[in-house]
């Protein structure tokens, strides 16, 4: 550890670039996950309508979200299944 680093450790002060990086990371988590809620609602309704033909879905327990992972956008849908329809 050199003198500068030692001084920093003693004063507990973070480099401003580390603060910037941390803030960026947080804000991007938000940005990347946000597609307009209305848009997601439309998708959600439609997905539920399709799946409901085959299974009974707990609508209150359904989460649909967008995020980015390794350069591609991912749409994640978590649907709680109450029952599977026997007609199929």
């Amino acid at each position: 550890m050199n003198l500068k680093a030692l001084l920093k450790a003693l004063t507990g002060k973070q480099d401003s670039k580390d603060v910037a990086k941390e803030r960026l990371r947080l804000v991007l988590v938000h940005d990347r996950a946000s597609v307009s809620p209305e848009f997601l609602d439309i998708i959600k309704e439609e997905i539920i309508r399709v799946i409901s033909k085959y299974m009974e879905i707990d609508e209150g327990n359904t989460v649909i979200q967008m995020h980015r992972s390794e350069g591609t956008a991912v749409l994640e849908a978590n649907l709680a299944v109450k029952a599977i329809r026997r007609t199929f």
Partner: protein
Amino acid sequence: MGEVIVITSGKGGVGKTTTTANLGVGMALLNKKVALIDADIGLRNLDVVMGLENRIVYDLVDVVEGRCRTRQALIRDKRYENLYLLPAAQTRDKSAVSPEQMRKLCEELKEEFDYVFVDCPAGIEQGFRNAIAGADRAIIVTTPEVSAVRDADRIIGLLEAAGLRGPRLLINRLRPEMVKRGDMLDIDDILEILAIDLIGVVPDDEKIIISTNRGEPVAAQENGSLAGQAYRNIVRRIMGEEVPFLNFYRNRSLLGRLKKLIGFGG
């Protein structure tokens, strides 16, 4: 058949226009036939950065509305072989052109030019949509600041959604001494956050301002400026050459090395 490359950023003021001008000049110096399109309708600036503001007769909107032929609107930069500018209209707005019209224009220019650079306006609205419409590749310009990097991330997402794959990042106005002090995001920090490939880094350089005052892009000046060298390297990378990245962190003086030894500056 040439290639259309859009220079974009999301945030304004990060150096898109300066970048477009310098890449164009650098490319022309390597004997490529180059056209620059200023897609910032209503806020045209590429003409003044290039020093061609007095030669405008027709503009981009005149071309798409059929008041002149494309050839008539292209201003030839007499200082270089094969460098042309298609200026933006100043008294119209972004809605004067549609993405479809831009696509057609780019197709037409690609027939004749090796490279077509499109200077994209700031923002993510119609001006941006127009600018990327005819592009084969994209270069995203950012500066080592939270706001610019954030906007670059947004642009990466939008380009992906538009089907423009594999954009490359240009980090502009890096200040090595601030990076060393820990007061500026470093190249690796930005690349880690944005997860895209780097096309080059241009250091902050007074000479950019001086050359813009004169309307002579720095890439044209063979000797001296580090920024000019950085732009010329980027041009060669665009052409597919492997060019090592400049090292901005050399210690030039004994004092600098001493300082580094005890941990201050250096």
